[in-house]
């Protein structure tokens, strides 16, 4: 019974559409849960900049406020371990997701970011048997997720040797930055067959190719609505084919249910893996329909969904 338990969300960044969707999903699902009397409170907290220190201070304050569980999307996998340990010591359940923490006392809902990189090359090798030159758009330097996806992509290139990465830029997961960086490097590159990405940067890359007057290569998309809309446009115009992959912002709701289950005394394994959300050519229309204009393709979890994930199904 968790009806007088309080859960907090500690989020470290709110400055892009993915995070906004995540907060919205949290809001939608937890409000209902509170209304249904499942938990007493589920308050979201967010800091302004992607900063470990701010988030650490935030979590410390959440400890003081007496929450029973804290759900964390962490700015750093290791640097919050100190404060996570403090929370655990205070008897608080800590569940991390998306940006997970490595402190053993916490639960982790991990996305296999490495695989997210690797599948892009698997897909490309299917599409282009002869391989070719690739442009890689990375995220923010020095951040865990960027490093993981990059490793996956490198692995994929190692496996599919017909591909070669001829250029690599940091797009910081932002449309404008990606566009700017790609436009800069493009003139110096030979023909590019494909663009591997990390999400939030595909549309910017497409714009840059168009502006440079280059043929549009196969760009892996990242589930943003504008990316899907662009893809649809191209598909209708010239049968453009690609795929789109990213983690669903609704994973925050999964983390919520997991925390609730743990509070409820259920046995939950410390490490859970959620699949990333992949959109293929066939699913495009459907996904586009269900995605809010300007938002991100999403999956929200119900309690039943969450129980299924926990049961490992």
């Amino acid at each position: 019974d968790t009806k007088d338990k309080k859960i907090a969300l500690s989020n470290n960044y709110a400055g892009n559409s993915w995070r906004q969707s995540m907060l919205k999903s949290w809001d939608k699902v937890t409000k209902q849960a509170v209304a249904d009397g499942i938990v007493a409170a589920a308050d979201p907290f967010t800091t302004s900049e992607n900063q470990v220190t701010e988030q650490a201070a935030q979590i410390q304050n959440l400890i003081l406020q007496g929450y029973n569980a804290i759900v964390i999307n962490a700015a750093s996998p290791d640097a919050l371990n100190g404060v996570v340990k403090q929370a655990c010591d205070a008897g608080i359940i800590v569940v991390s997701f998306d940006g997970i923490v490595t402190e053993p006392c916490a639960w982790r809902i991990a996305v296999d970011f490495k695989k997210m990189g690797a599948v892009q090359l698997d897909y490309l090798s299917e599409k282009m048997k002869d391989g070719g030159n690739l442009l890689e758009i990375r995220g923010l330097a020095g951040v865990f997720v960027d490093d993981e996806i990059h490793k996956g992509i490198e692995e994929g290139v190692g496996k599919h040797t017909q591909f070669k990465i001829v250029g690599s830029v940091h797009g910081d997961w932002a449309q404008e930055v990606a566009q700017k960086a790609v436009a800069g490097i493009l003139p110096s590159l030979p023909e590019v067959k494909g663009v591997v990405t990390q999400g939030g940067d595909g549309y910017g890359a497409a714009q840059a190719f168009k502006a440079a007057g280059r043929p549009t290569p196969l760009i892996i998309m990242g589930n943003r609505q504008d990316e899907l809309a662009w893809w649809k446009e191209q598909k209708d115009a010239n049968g453009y084919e690609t795929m789109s992959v990213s983690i669903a912002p609704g994973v925050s709701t999964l983390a919520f249910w997991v925390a609730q289950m743990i509070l409820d005394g259920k046995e939950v394994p410390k490490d859970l893996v959620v699949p990333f959300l992949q959109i293929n050519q066939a699913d495009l229309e459907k996904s586009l329909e269900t995605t809010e204009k300007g938002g991100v393709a999403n999956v929200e979890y119900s309690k039943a969904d969450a129980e299924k994930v926990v049961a490992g199904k």
Partner: protein
Amino acid sequence: MSALTLNRKTLRALLPLASLALVLAATFYAQPRTMSYFGLNLMLQYAVPIALATIAQMFIITVNDLDLSIGPFVGLVGCIGATYLHDTPALGILALLLCIGAYAAMAALIHLRNLPSIVVTLGASFIWLGIAVMILPSPGGKAPDWLKAIMALQVPLIPFPIIAALLIALLVHIGLMTSSYGVIMRGTGGNPRAMARAGWSELRTKMAMYALAGFFGVLSGLSLIGLTTSADAHIADRYTLYAIAGVILGGGEFVGGRVSPFGAVIGALTLTLAGSFLIFMRISPDWQIGAQGAILIIVLALRALISAGEARR
């Protein structure tokens, strides 16, 4: 006239303290649980590295410069601390000494070529970040145990962060505000030409002040990873602005060598507490970022209120 000035001066000196008291009272009111040894300890822990970084910034501001690189520098120190200092202490100490030396070299460059400090330190911030990313491409590392032990120190009666903050302020106050060499340092900020006319080398003073800033930056980085237990290149990016805000909140002025170590430390504490207060306020996530701005404004507006009577000068 003299009684009036004195009055105005004491008022101005007490201003930071008043802001702190106000924010503290508000925090206690919003969350009575913070009014305990445990609560204060938890809430103020992260103020220690910020206070040290603020002192570092204060040294630079004393000689009329501004350091835009202190945040990334603290991050770099953190990365060195969690790697070299942990694995091969001798190498780690050497690296940290080099860091301090780099600060002094920066002062020499700025002075000899008569460069604006803002640009040089802006450039330096990229260099620190770059080196940090190379040392620690993705977050991790381990803080030396002795650092963790120091930062987890439990002192009876008064929480450790408060003692540490007071100690830092007192030491710097003696060095800068009351010692005969401190006079030379501050004089260089007040009227560098007069100091040169009296035969003091501005180059040496500046190098000393920058080296001190580097030293306190090192202390800040080390105390930070003592708390977080691991490092991240971006761990302290925000410290640059925090440190500037802390100095100003503490009654320092950007030009003219008017600074106050106690004020700076109090400023850092105020900023940290203000952050906590906001979290206790449970504002909607949309406005949580904005509220940080609002609270800065409110605290600083106090200054205007008190100095309202003080005519244009």
